[in-house]
């Protein structure tokens, strides 16, 4: 059970809201400023990917964000209804395309949190789970 659940409409303007909400919850949970900054970027990446992914298939269902806190970590999940994809970053950064942004996004997701898991949802779409250990 998530401690906090937040559903944002699938629009880019709402990504900032999710980012601020998670930052505030993470700070309250005891993460330091640098870890909060990193998590903000990771949440922003996951939400941007979800919104763009929904857009790609014309899905207007909300992006579901969950915030959980265990004894040792903060876990944030971001789920969409867009197309299922293989979360492998491309090694070719030379195209300047949407794919390139996505590859950079995956690089950031895998670097900025302690664990990033990207899996298809049973009922369609993808779920990104971001884990940050508490100090």
């Amino acid at each position, binding site marked *: 059970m998530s401690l906090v659940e937040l559903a944002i409409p699938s629009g880019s303007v709402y990504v900032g809201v999710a980012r601020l909400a998670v930052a505030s919850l993470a700070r309250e949970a005891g993460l330091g400023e640098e870890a909060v900054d990193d998590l903000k970027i990771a949440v922003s990446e996951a939400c*941007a990917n979800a919104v763009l992914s929904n857009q790609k298939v014309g899905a207007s269902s909300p992006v579901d964000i969950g915030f959980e806190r265990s004894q040792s970590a903060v876990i944030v999940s971001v789920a969409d209804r867009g197309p299922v994809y293989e979360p492998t970053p491309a090694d070719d950064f030379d195209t300047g395309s949407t794919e390139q942004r996505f590859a*950079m996004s995956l690089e*950031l997701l895998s670097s900025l949190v302690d664990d990033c898991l990207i899996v298809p949802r049973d009922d369609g779409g993808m779920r990104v789970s971001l884990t940050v250990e508490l100090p």
Partner: protein
Amino acid sequence: MELGLDVREIGSRAVVDVKGEIDVYTAPKLREKLIELVSEGSYDVVVNLEGVDFLDSTGLGVLVGALKRVKAHDGSLSLVCTQEKILKIFKITGLTKVFPIHDSLDAATAAQGD
């Protein structure tokens, strides 16, 4: 959430002072501004990120796109950034090798051959 974009000319360069957060919502505004500059003939561009509080892959994508545009005209695109949390994003994605990143606007506008 607003993104501040101020353009001024320093020497032969167009300097864009960016203020605020660059994310999936605001990045298109930055892209439009950079495309406008190039279409008006500014091929040597400095993007000043000192007033930026937040940057993610959507902003990086816009900067890479703009770099390609100016390079197509034998131009240059350099950045001003000293904030560690923003520099970190360029380091993780390997873009510190792609963009000349300066620690002051003076250094960026004085640099040759960027």
